């Protein structure tokens, strides 16, 4: 690199999207399908307050646990780098999710219809904190076992949240799901004037 012209390299702006869902649902596969680098993994430590109170003591035990955090990267242009983070699978890592989700544009929740319940902690969490998200039903073996409407109903997903299918192994499929998520996030930024072609059904936005 020729650094004579500018002594300080231009540092891009980092942005991120979270890929959530149950264990083994294809989160890391999806990150790897679209990342420009091999999926990297780092150890993150989380402090858990043990749910059960020790029989002999009165204070809950605090324990250190580490989880592997997988991520990938896409260079959008010379100024923007997009990071994709897979959440560690289990809902008990809520402490870590807060760090992960803070500042994210949104989340893609990947769903395996054979284990619908596994994604519920993620859906519930993003609903609660108001993060834009899209539910992506992963097509294992190219098969869709349930109708998308059934998935929406089973998980009590509001109308404003898109439910789509995805093949986590296929770059274009992951890309399309991310674009749908970002359009959703854009709508949240300018709720008073949604783009005409993406106008939601009347009443959907103000249902609450």
């Amino acid at each position, binding site marked *: *690199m020729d650094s004579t012209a500018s*002594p*300080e*390299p231009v*540092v*891009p*702006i*980092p*942005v*991120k999207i979270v890929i959530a869902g149950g264990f083994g649902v294809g989160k890391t596969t999806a990150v790897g399908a*679209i990342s420009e*680098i*091999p*999926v*990297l*993994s*780092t*150890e*993150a*430590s989380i402090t858990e307050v043990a749910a059960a109170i020790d029989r002999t003591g009165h204070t809950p035990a605090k324990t250190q646990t*580490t989880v592997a*955090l997988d*991520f990938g*990267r*896409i*260079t*959008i*242009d010379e*100024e*923007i*780098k*997009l*990071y994709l*983070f897979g959440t560690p699978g289990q809902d008990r890592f809520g402490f870590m999710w807060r*760090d*992960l989700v*803070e*500042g994210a*544009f949104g989340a893609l929740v990947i769903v395996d219809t054979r284990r619908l319940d596994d994604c519920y902690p993620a859906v519930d969490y993003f609903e609660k904190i108001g993060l834009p998200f899209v539910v992506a039903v992963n097509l294992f073996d190219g098969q869709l076992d349930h109708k998308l409407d059934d998935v929406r109903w089973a998980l009590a997903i509001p109308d404003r949240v898109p439910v789509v299918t995805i093949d986590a192994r296929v*770059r*274009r499929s992951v*890309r399309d799901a*991310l*674009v749908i998520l*970002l*359009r959703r*996030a*854009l709508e949240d*930024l*300018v709720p008073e004037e949604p783009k005409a072609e993406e106008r939601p059904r009347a009443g959907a936005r103000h249902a609450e």
Partner: protein
Amino acid sequence: MAGPEGDVTTVEPARLPPYVLTGGRARPVDERLEIEALVVATPVGRGERARLQFEPGDIVSLCREPHAIVEVAALLGLQLGVTRVLVGDLVATGHLSVSRPAWQAGRKAEIIERVIRGLDSIT
């Protein structure tokens, strides 16, 4: 970009108890330093690289090119929390400068639109 990543996807974590490296501190100087914040060595950092030892030296060397904190952790085999503390220190001492997503909050819509265009061009 031919970065230092190569084909390495995982690195064995450091063998010392992780927070020995930070003198026992588990939180960074700046509590809210995001794990995707991008850091790069400043001219001061590059100039003083030889005087930095161990992990801080490795971090400044790696950050001749911008890297996210989470990338620094993965590429150097450091725990994420430890990395965040060490990077926070190096930012405070002027060895690293940092680009944070929160500083661009006013440009969010424009940035999202650019990310959509960028993704659309992926085939």
